[in-house]
């Protein structure tokens, strides 16, 4: 069974991506053996307040048991507690995603401290969206960069008692972060090199990797085949495919 931790609903204005309805996304992922997916709404990336998109997400996924909504919160907005209230009330999932670069703040700011403290108090998991796409050839007008590895490291060190899932890390970034930070998980979407899964399982604790398809940005089958065709131990395969995601998200 595959659990996808990196899938999206909603529109992306900068490329020809397929905009799935919740039912279409379930059918599409199911066709590729993905039984459950943690999804966010891309409308929350660019709009000044993520909550309208989060409400759409919660409504769209209400009747889709295979989709687990993961709201996007902007902790720099004055109403971040209200955002958390709504997100936690509307979903069984105890996790929120933040997008520091798309929401114009640094992971190193101390303004995140009360937000993180509140997450810990409520028992809510934190997910950091590091990148959505390859910046080399995306829409020229979009200047937002990926979350810098150094800032992620500082954040992880500052909150060393907290496990954080980073979505969209590359293999070199995982390698660098692993040197100083034992408290992060990574998804598989942007990790690529020949035999990437085998390499990753040899270098990085297997309990800290979760499957991510990056649908609809990526061809879902390509992301799935990367994992299912890899020569992994049964333990690593199960961990990457579902066990780690189940544990992290309490699914």
């Amino acid at each position, binding site marked *: 069974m595959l659990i996808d931790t990196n899938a999206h609903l909603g529109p992306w204005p900068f490329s020809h991506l397929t905009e799935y309805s919740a039912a279409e996304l379930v059918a599409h992922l199911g066709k590729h053996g993905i039984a459950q997916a943690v999804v966010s709404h891309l409308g929350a990336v660019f709009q000044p307040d993520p909550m309208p998109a989060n409400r759409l997400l919660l409504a769209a996924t209400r009747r889709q048991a295979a989709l687990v909504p993961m709201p996007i919160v902007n902790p720099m907005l004055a109403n971040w507690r209200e955002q958390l209230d709504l997100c936690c009330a509307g979903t069984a999932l105890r996790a929120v995603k933040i997008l520091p670069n798309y929401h114009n703040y640094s992971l190193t700011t101390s303004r995140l401290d009360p937000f993180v403290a509140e997450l810990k108090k409520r028992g809510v998991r934190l997910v950091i969206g590091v990148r959505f796409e390859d910046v080399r050839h995306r829409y020229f007008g979009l200047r937002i960069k990926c979350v810098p590895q150094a800032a992620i490291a500082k954040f992880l060190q500052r909150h060393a008692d907290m496990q954080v899932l980073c979505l969209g890390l590359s293999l070199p970034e995982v390698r660098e972060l692993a040197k100083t930070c034992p408290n992060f998980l990574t998804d598989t979407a942007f990790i690529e090199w020949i035999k990437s899964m085998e390499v990753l399982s040899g270098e990085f604790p297997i309990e800290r990797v979760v499957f991510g398809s990056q649908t609809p940005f990526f*061809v879902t089958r390509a992301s799935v085949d990367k994992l299912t065709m890899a020569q992994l131990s049964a333990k690593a395969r199960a961990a990457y495919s579902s066990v780690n995601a189940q544990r992290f998200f309490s699914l």
Partner: protein
Amino acid sequence: MQAIDIHTHPVFLHKGYSKKEIDEFASYGTAHGIGRMVALGDVLAYGRNPNAKQIAAINDQTAQVVRWRPDYYIGFCYLNPTLGAKAVEREVERCAPYGFRGLKLEVANNARDACMAPVMRAAERLNLPVLQHSWSMTNIKQRSFHTDPADTALLARRYPNVQVIMAHLTGCGFRGVLEAKGIENLVVDTSGAFPEANILEYAIEHLGADHVVYGSDLPIRESSVTLGRILGSKLSESELKKVLITNAQRILKL
């Protein structure tokens, strides 16, 4: 289905110098359904502008790869057009016994540059395809030496008797596909970049399935992903066969 991968680097950044490594690379490909691979050489081993001696070393190593596994690898001759007409012609001549099936160009210069003329004349004379590294230079400000899809398209238009392969469909982007549209002697390879959705279908729609050919860019990428992005796109059986097999057979004269 045994696909042909038109864009690989079995020797890459000074790795792959033993027969064992080359055999393992081939076994990896076979296990993923790749019947044959084009070996393009360790093109960045000495930086972007290698001298004649370095070019010769890279081509000798490609020839060694093919000698080790002639059943699997097809070699391309790597050239640096900025070394001048004599150096280009000398290297093409020197490599003739190797039986290379194409010429490979990287980032020594832009494909618009006048120094391309000897390369293209050699390609025309020997009836060899030219595989030109290409990437959108919209965000990467290196166009003085790094080829944009518009430059590769111009190259193909200037030399209509030479089969040109524009590398890296995803890096060339939707704009790159439109640059390539309507140029009979130009095909785009699918190598490189992440498996971004919908661009392959867009390329098939605008260029036709005869003008898109499978490539991976191994070992920078992996076959499960590069094949998965083809097999997971909305292509007909006939289109799949062209992209994965018959276009490469035509280009490589297999």
